[in-house]
């Protein structure tokens, strides 16, 4: 009987998994990258809310002469909020500009107002100025045509536009596709990170030869399950944390619709993440076992990278419908596409459940395949194991 056999004891699996988790949590690099990831997600939620402020744009403006000061003050306050500094001439205005005291200088030229800025034209200010000047000249023209003041005012008063919304929501219409892409990105990065980490962990055990000690103590499958469950647990925790950070961000920025959207779909996302991870994780472990040194990893994990990257691009770029529906049932793309379809209310709950079952069934097969490859290659220390050799379990070198 070889060391590959023997009954798997779940206490041992837990020990192996606990070691994986413990060592990761002790690794400063891992903690830092996790924190960075969380910060990134928090920032991507908070920043748009801060940047795309609906309030008026603020400007510090230097005005040449008292007439221009009056003009600046007449700018519509719902568009721009100007702080005016009066200066005697253009040279003084330019000095302030170059000293970064103001963002724009305003003066009256022969043909109307002239705006000076350093590098970038102050868009909103120009817009506001245009509207004001237009209204001003129109007013002057009407007055010249002899129209009474009351009628002039009425003509110039802004029309009272009424708005009706059929599907009222404070949710930004761009949020749903953005969220879909965010889910796909998270899936991709987290699976990639932990898949690589599994493969590296396995090859390190081979490289350091501790694998001989380990397999003489416990069956090979115990090592595989422990490693996959330990890393999978960490990955899932990271995903849940990221989703929670997203929800906290939505709550903090008052995006109630976004929050409820997240609440309704986070479960699906986490479920499909777990299934997708299970589908690939044992194969990552096998890729690690088929290498005998870290240098070989690039080659042995290449097929897996393709299995991850190709569905990723497909999920991001294929948005037309028949293809997308099919992809939401294809095992490798389903974990990426189905949560997005559910998010967009494009798929019914039974569709989600069916797709989950498809991925689960594939995962069961993939775990078996990964296990077989892992067992056949784990104890070969001379060179890379070919896929054919690992599958047939042909004896390799070693003495």
């Amino acid at each position: 009987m070889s060391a590959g056999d023997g009954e798997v004891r779940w206490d041992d699996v837990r020990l192996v998994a606990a070691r994986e988790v413990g060592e990761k949590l002790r690794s400063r690099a891992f903690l830092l990258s996790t924190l960075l990831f969380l910060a990134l997600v928090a920032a991507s939620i908070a920043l748009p809310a801060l940047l795309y402020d609906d309030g008026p744009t603020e400007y510090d403006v230097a005005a040449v002469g008292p007439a221009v000061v009056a003009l600046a003050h007449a700018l519509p306050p719902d568009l721009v909020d100007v702080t005016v500094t009066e200066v005697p001439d253009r040279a003084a205005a330019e000095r302030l500009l170059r000293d970064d005291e103001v963002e724009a200088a305003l003066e009256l030229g022969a043909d109307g107002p002239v705006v000076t800025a350093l590098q970038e034209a102050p868009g909103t200010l120009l817009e506001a100025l245009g509207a004001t000047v237009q209204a001003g000249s129109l007013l002057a023209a009407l007055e010249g045509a002899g129209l009474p003041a009351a009628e002039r005012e009425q003509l110039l008063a802004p029309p009272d536009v009424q708005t009706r919304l059929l599907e009222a929501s404070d949710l930004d219409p761009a949020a749903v596709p953005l969220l879909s892409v965010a889910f796909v990105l998270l899936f991709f990065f987290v699976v990639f990170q932990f898949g690589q980490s599994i493969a590296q962990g396995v090859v390190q055990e081979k490289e350091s030869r501790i694998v001989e000690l380990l397999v003489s103590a416990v069956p090979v499958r115990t090592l595989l399950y422990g490693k996959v469950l330990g890393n999978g647990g960490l990955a899932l925790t990271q995903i849940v944390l990221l989703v929670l950070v997203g929800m906290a961000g939505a709550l903090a920025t008052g995006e109630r619709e976004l929050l409820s959207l997240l609440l309704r779909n986070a479960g699906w996302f986490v479920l499909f993440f777990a299934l997708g991870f299970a589908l690939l994780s044992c194969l990552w472990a096998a890729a690690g076992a088929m290498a005998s040194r870290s240098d070989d990893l690039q080659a042995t994990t290449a097929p897996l990278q393709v299995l991850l990257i190709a569905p990723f691009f497909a999920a991001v770029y294929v948005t037309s419908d028949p293809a997308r529906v099919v992809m939401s049932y294809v095992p490798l793309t389903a974990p990426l596409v189905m949560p997005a379809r559910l998010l967009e209310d494009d798929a019914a709950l039974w569709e989600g459940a069916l797709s989950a079952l498809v991925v689960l069934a594939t995962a069961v097969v993939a775990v078996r395949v990964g296990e077989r490859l892992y067992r056949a290659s784990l104890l070969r220390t001379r060179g890379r194991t070919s896929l054919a050799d690992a599958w047939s379990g042909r004896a390799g070198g070693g003495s």
Partner: protein
Amino acid sequence: MLELTGVTKSYGERRVVDDVSFVVPAGSLTGFVGANGAGKTTTMRVVLGIVEADAGTVTWQGSPVDAAVRRRTGYMPEERGLYPRMQVRRQLVHLARLHGIDAGVARRRADELLERLDLGERADDQVDALSLGNQQRAQIAAALVHDPDLLLLDEPFSGLDPVAVDRLTELLREIAAGGVPVLFSSHQLELVERLCDRVVVLAAGRVVAAGEVDALRRARTRPRHRLVLGGDAGWVRGAPRVSVVEVVGNRALVEADDAALQALLAQAVRRGAVHELSPVTPTLSELYREVLA
């Protein structure tokens, strides 16, 4: 008792282990000697199930070695291996627990062993921060931490300083005295001779000698004697029924049975002074070279 019967393993055309049979009795330190590539490591790996034999059986207390037995076996591989980035004590505790030892007991055992192997102060260092000698000690501790019922050590002494060799010797004697069969391979034959009651000599995958060292000595067909004379010993070459191993000046090393030896002595006395006639016990190295010749 560990018993190997007819264990055979080939890699392709190359037969690395060829019909190997021997026993490692309880309470004995058994030395496993042989040239590089003789098949010692593969034999140990077969016992541990790391390598699957093509033929033959390995039994422990009469039953085939299975996962449960391996769990109670301590092993020090030839190519040393521990997690390089893990602290020594935590690593030992982890390995002990994988062998089925409770956390509390595992911690106590790990601390005891680290103290005994002078690694106590390094317990919280990562393995890759240790010197090679200390890594070796940690590896020994890893083989012993679960208080094994059977111990297989592949070159445990290589790379150890003399003090550490003494520590390990003492430790192994103690473990063997506790009834644990210990099999260890070594190239240092003097050490094996000093430490072991039994040896197994492997050459090109085959057992060429196995048993107690004393019995191997006795098994030599003719005992050797040293003869030291007053004058030149050259004439000994002509003595009947005596085979001369070497003659240097007034000394001769001969192989002869009892009668021939008595005749040789009588002749020597007739010829002049006899300073010494003494039996020569062969060292293990000599025996080793002899069985390989």
